[in-house]
C-alpha cells in the first residue's frame, strides 16, 4: 500500500500515513493532543488544522469561514490522506495541559473567605490502613519441633500483627517462597493486599523494604484526569498531576463515548486511552519523586459510572438505554495489570462503588470526603462538572440526582467559552459607559471565558442593564459593544486588538440562554429534591461545592445569577476535587472503604426526568435569579 509523509507543525515531527487514512485518526495515533468534541463526525468543527502544502481531498463543511478556507483551514476528521502533507495544528484546536483541578492546595488560594479542606478533612480522619501494606517479618527458623510449612509460617507471623481471618497467596508467589526465605535468612517483607474481606500475600521481598510502599489515587473525570502519589506508610501526598482525559478525542460527553464504544466497537480504544493517560501520570509522578513503579502496590480510581466501565473495559451500552442499568456498581478489587495500568505487576486496583448509571464513584467519593454522611446536620453537595450532580442528606439518609445541566459551565456550547485554564477570563466588571474590565487566568491576553467568568459576566450584564431578567440583550443602549450578528444579538467583551487570536471575544444571546438553562436545571434539581422530602431550603446547614468550576466561583454573583440558593453565605464551602480526596481516603483507610460501601448502598438516586414537577421548577428558574423572587430575599 502507498504511504505518505505528514509533517506536523509546530511539533515539527513527521508521521507516515497510509493511503486514504483519516487525518484526525493519524494525529490522535501520533499522540498529538487535538480537540474533537464530536469524535470525528464532522459535526463539532473543533479539529481545525491548516494545510501548508500538499493536495487534499475533503468534504465541504459549514464550520469554516471563507477567510479560514483561504488560509488553508480544513477539519482533520474530513480529510483522507492522498498525498504528502505539511500541516499546522493551530492554537484553538489544541488540547492544552491547562489549569486542571489538581490537589487542594492550589485551589484554595482564591477562596480565603471559605472553609478550607484542612478543616474539612479533620471531620473525617480515618485510621490509616491502606489497601496494600508492607510488613517486615523476622521469621523464626524452622525446626523438627516447629515444622510448619513455609507459607503457614508466614501466615502465623503475619497474624502476630494483624488478625486476618482469611489469607491467600497465588501460586506464582508460593513457587518463590522456599528459596527466597532461605536466601534472605528468613528476613523478608511481605506485601499484603486487602481484597475485600480476604487478605492476599501479593509479593515477597528479601530483607526490610517496608519503607517503600506507595499508592496512587486517581480522579477520572469526563474531561480531566488527576492523579496523586501517596506514601502508604504515612498518608503523605508526594505529588499530584493532571491532564485532559485522552478519551476526549472520541467525544466530549459520556453519551458520545458510549456511542463510540458500542456502535464503533471502540471499547478497546477508549480503555487504552484512559490506561495510557493514567500510566503517563503515574510515570511522571514516580520519576519526580524518584521511586520505582514496582513499589507502587495499589491504585484507587474514582470516576462516574461510564468512566469506571470504560476503565475496566466493560460495555457501557446499557447505561444509555432505558431503564439505564449499569453492568456493575460494586467492582471487586482486581489486579491493576488486568486493565493495562503499569504499577507493580501484582498490584491492586480498586474503583469507588457507584449508585446508579448517572451517579458514580466520583460522587460517592465526594460524599465521603465532604463528611455529609457523618453529620447530624442536613447538607447538600453539588458537583458541577460536565454534568451537575446533587446529593442531599445527613448521617441517616442520602439521596442524589444528576441534572443534565450540560457542559455550558465548562465553556462548551458557548461561542467564546473555554475551560478554566491560562487565557480564560475569570472575572469582569462593567462600568456605566459599558466599558469592561477583566482578569485573566495566567495574566495573559484573553482567549475566551471560563464558567465562573461567564457567571460573573452575566451578573455584571444584568446589573448594568445590558440584559434583562430573561437574559435578553437590550439593543437600545448607546454602545457599539452591542451588535447584531446575523440575526443574533451579542455583546463584545474584549475587542480583537486585545485578544490572543485577534478575534473579538463576545457573549451572544444564545450563549446567555444556554447558561440560564444550565443553571435552571441545577437549581430546579435542588428544589425538587428538597420538595420531594418536604424539607425547607433553610434547613440545609451546609452547602458544599465540588469541582473545577466551584473553585473560581464568586458566591455572591452565583446567587445573583440564581445558580445557588440564597442562604447565609457562611453555609457555602468549596471542597475542590472531592472525588480525588475520596479516592485517597479509600486508598488509605479500611474505615473509609467500609464507609464508602455504606454510602453507595444507602444512597437513593432520583431520576429527575420522570419527576412530575421538574419541568415546572425548571421553567420557573429560567429567569435571573428566579421567577419567584421570594426565594432570593437578599437579591431583591
Amino acid at each position: 500500500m502507498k504511504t505518505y509523509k505528514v509533517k506536523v507543525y509546530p511539533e515539527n515531527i513527521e508521521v507516515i500515513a497510509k493511503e486514504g487514512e483519516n487525518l484526525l485518526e493519524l494525529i490522535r495515533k501520533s499522540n498529538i493532543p487535538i480537540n474533537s468534541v464530536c469524535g470525528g463526525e464532522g459535526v463539532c468543527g473543533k479539529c481545525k488544522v491548516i494545510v501548508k502544502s500538499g493536495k487534499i481531498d475533503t468534504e465541504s463543511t459549514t464550520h469554516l469561514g471563507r477567510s479560514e478556507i483561504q488560509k488553508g483551514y480544513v477539519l482533520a476528521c474530513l480529510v483522507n490522506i492522498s498525498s504528502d502533507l505539511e500541516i499546522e495544528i493551530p492554537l484553538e484546536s489544541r488540547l492544552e495541559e491547562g489549569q486542571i483541578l489538581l490537589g487542594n492546595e492550589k485551589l484554595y488560594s482564591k477562596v480565603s473567605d471559605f472553609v478550607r479542606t484542612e478543616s474539612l478533612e479533620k471531620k473525617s480522619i480515618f485510621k490509616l490502613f491502606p489497601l496494600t501494606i508492607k510488613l517486615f517479618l523476622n521469621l523464626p527458623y524452622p525446626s523438627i519441633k516447629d515444622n510448619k510449612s513455609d507459607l503457614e509460617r508466614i501466615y502465623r507471623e503475619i497474624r502476630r500483627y494483624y488478625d486476618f481471618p482469611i489469607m491467600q497467596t497465588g501460586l506464582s508467589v508460593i513457587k518463590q517462597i522456599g528459596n527466597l526465605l532461605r536466601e534472605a535468612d528468613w528476613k523478608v517483607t511481605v506485601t499484603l493486599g486487602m481484597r475485600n474481606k480476604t487478605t492476599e500475600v501479593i509479593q515477597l521481598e528479601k530483607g526490610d523494604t517496608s519503607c517503600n510502599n506507595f499508592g496512587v489515587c486517581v480522579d477520572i473525570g469526563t474531561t480531566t484526569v488527576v492523579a496523586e502519589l501517596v506514601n502508604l506508610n504515612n498518608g503523605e501526598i508526594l505529588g499530584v498531576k493532571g491532564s485532559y482525559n485522552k478519551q476526549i478525542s472520541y467525544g466530549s460527553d459520556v453519551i458520545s463515548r458510549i456511542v463510540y464504544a458500542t456502535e464503533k466497537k471502540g471499547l478497546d480504544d477508549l480503555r487504552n486511552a484512559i490506561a495510557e493517560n493514567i500510566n503517563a501520570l503515574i510515570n511522571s509522578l514516580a520519576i519526580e519523586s524518584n521511586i520505582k513503579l514496582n513499589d507502587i502496590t495499589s491504585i484507587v480510581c474514582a470516576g462516574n459510572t461510564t468512566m469506571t466501565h470504560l476503565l475496566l473495559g466493560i460495555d457501557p451500552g446499557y447505561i444509555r438505554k432505558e431503564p439505564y442499568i449499569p453492568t456493575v456498581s460494586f467492582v471487586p478489587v482486581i489486579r491493576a495489570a488486568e486493565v493495562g495500568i503499569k504499577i507493580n505487576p501484582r498490584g491492586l486496583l480498586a474503583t469507588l462503588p457507584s449508585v446508579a448509571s448517572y451517579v458514580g464513584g466520583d460522587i460517592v467519593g465526594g460524599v465521603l470526603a465532604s463528611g455529609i454522611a457523618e453529620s447530624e446536620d442536613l447538607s447538600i453537595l453539588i458537583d458541577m462538572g460536565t454534568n451537575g450532580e446533587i446529593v442531599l442528606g445527613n448521617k441517616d439518609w442520602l439521596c442524589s440526582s444528576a441534572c443534565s445541566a450540560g457542559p455550558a459551565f465548562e465553556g462548551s456550547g458557548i461561542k467564546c467559552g473555554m475551560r478554566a485554564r491560562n487565557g480564560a477570563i475569570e472575572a469582569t466588571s462593567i462600568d456605566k459607559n459599558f466599558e469592561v474590565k477583566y482578569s485573566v487566568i495566567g495574566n495573559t491576553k484573553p482567549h475566551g471565558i471560563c464558567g465562573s467568568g461567564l457567571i460573573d459576566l452575566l451578573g455584571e450584564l444584568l446589573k448594568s442593564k445590558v440584559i434583562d431578567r430573561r437574559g435578553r440583550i437590550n439593543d437600545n443602549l448607546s454602545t457599539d459593544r452591542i451588535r447584531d450578528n446575523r440575526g443574533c444579538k451579542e455583546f463584545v467583551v474584549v475587542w480583537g486588538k486585545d485578544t490572543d487570536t485577534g478575534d473579538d471575544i463576545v457573549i451572544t444571546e444564545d450563549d446567555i440562554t444556554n447558561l440560564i438553562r444550565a443553571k435552571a436545571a441545577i437549581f430546579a434539581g435542588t428544589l425538587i429534591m428538597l420538595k420531594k422530602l418536604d424539607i425547607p431550603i433553610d434547613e440545609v446547614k451546609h452547602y458544599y461545592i465540588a469541582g473545577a468550576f466551584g473553585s473560581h466561583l464568586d458566591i455572591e454573583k452565583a446567587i445573583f445569577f440564581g445558580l445557588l440558593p440564597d442562604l447565609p453565605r457562611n453555609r457555602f464551602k468549596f471542597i475542590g476535587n472531592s472525588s480525588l480526596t475520596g479516592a485517597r481516603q479509600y486508598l488509605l483507610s479500611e474505615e473509609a472503604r467500609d464507609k464508602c460501601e455504606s454510602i453507595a448502598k444507602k444512597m437513593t438516586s432520583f431520576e429527575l426526568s420522570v419527576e412530575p414537577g421538574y419541568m415546572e421548577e425548571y421553567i420557573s428558574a429560567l429567569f435571573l435569579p428566579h421567577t419567584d423572587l421570594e426565594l432570593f430575599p437578599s437579591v431583591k
Partner: protein
Amino acid sequence: MALTGLEIFKLLPKTNCGKCGSPTCLAFAMRLAAKKASIDECPDISNEAKAALGAASAPPIKLVTIGTGENKLEIGNETVLFRHEQTFYHPTGMAILVEDTDSNLESKITEINNLVFERVGQILKVNLIALKNSSNDTSKFTNAVKIIIQNSKLPLILISDNLSILEEGLKITASSKPLIYSANSSNYEKMANLAKQYNVPLVVSGENLDELADLTQKITSLGVSDLILEVNKGDFLSNLTDLVQIRRLSLKKTFRPLGYPTLVKVLNTPSYDELFQVSVYICKYASIVILSGIELWKHLSLLTLRQNIYTDPQKPIQVESKIYDIGAVSDNSPVLVTTNFSLTYSLVSGEVEASRIPSYIIVVNTEGVSVLTAWAADKFNAEIITKYLKESGIENKVKHRKVIIPGGVAVISGKLQELSNWEVLVGPREATGIPAFLKEIKI
C-alpha cells in the same frame, strides 16, 4: 396529616437490603408516602412500626366502593388538591336519576346503557342509575328496581325517605351493593342499621359541614364507615364552596370526620346550566354527581372533560406519531423529522408555520421525550428514523429524498444518510432557527 417519606423512613429498619424491590429504605419510604407501595412489602419491619405506619397511612379520604364486578365504582382515596401535584385517581361517578313513577322506565334504561363512547382508546360511560321512590309505594319501587337490574349492569343508588320501602328495595339488590340515600340527623340510626345489616354504603346529608361531621362521627360509632357526604345547600356557589372545604379539610388538616367521598345533585336544571354545573363539580371534587339529563351530546362533553381531568399528568404528553402537513404542501415540500414529545412538536410546528413555507413534519414515536433526551437514550437514532421514513409513507408524498433533522442530533446524519438513502440536511439546534433555515435551503 399523612406521613412524609422521611417520617416513614425513620420507622423502617434502615438495612437497605432491597428485599422489597426498592434499592434503599428511603426509596421504599417515598413510595409508601406516595401510596405506590404497601407496608407488607417490607419483610423486616417491626410490629410497632407497622402499627404506627398503618394508622398514619390510612388514606385521608376513604375509598368507597359501590356495586360489584366489572361495573363497580370506586371513589375517594384522593391525595392532592391539584391535579398537577400528582394525579386524581378515581373519576367522578356519573349517576342518572330515574323515578319509580316513570312510565317509560325501560326505554330510559336502554338510553342510559347506550351512553358509551370510545375516545383515545378508552371506553367512557356513565356509572350509576339513581332510582328515586317518588310514588311512596312499595310495589312500584320494587318493580322499578327489578326492571333496572334486568336491563342494566350499572350499580344502583336507592333513594327513599321511607325506610321500610327502602329496605324492600335493598332486599332485592343487597348482593350487588347499591348505595342508599340518605341518612340525616333524624333517621341516621335506622339508616346506619340498614347499611350495616345489608353491608352497603350510605349517603349522609346535613344542613352544613358541622352537622355532616357530627353525623359521620355518630354513624361510624355505630359501625358503618362506607360513607358518602352529600353537599346540598341548593345553590351552585355554596355547593362548590362546601366541596372545596371538604377536600381541603380532609387533605390539609386530615380532618377524619369529613374524610369521605362526596355527592352532589344537579336536578331539574335548564340544559346548559346543568352542563355547566356538572362540569364544575367534575373539576372541583365531586365524587358522584346525580343529574337528570340523559342527552348523548351532554354526556359526551361531560365524559370527555372527566377523562381529561383524570389523566395522569406525570406521563409525558405525546402527539400522535404520523406525518403532519403544515400549510399547502406539495410533492416538493421540505420534510422535517422530530420526536413525539408534545412540547417539541408544538415548538417545531409553530416555527414551521411562521416560516410560511409549506412543509411536512414527520413525528417519530420516542415515547414522549424530547430530541436530545431521546437521542441519549437511543430512542431517536438512524435506524429508528430510517424505519419510520419507510413506514410513514412519506416516500409517496414527496418526489425528493431530502430530510431535515434537528441540529441537536447532527451526529446521526452520516449513518442516517447511509441507512436511509435520503440526503440528510442538518437543521438548526433551536426551533427558533427553523424559519431562517427553511428560507435558505433548496429542496
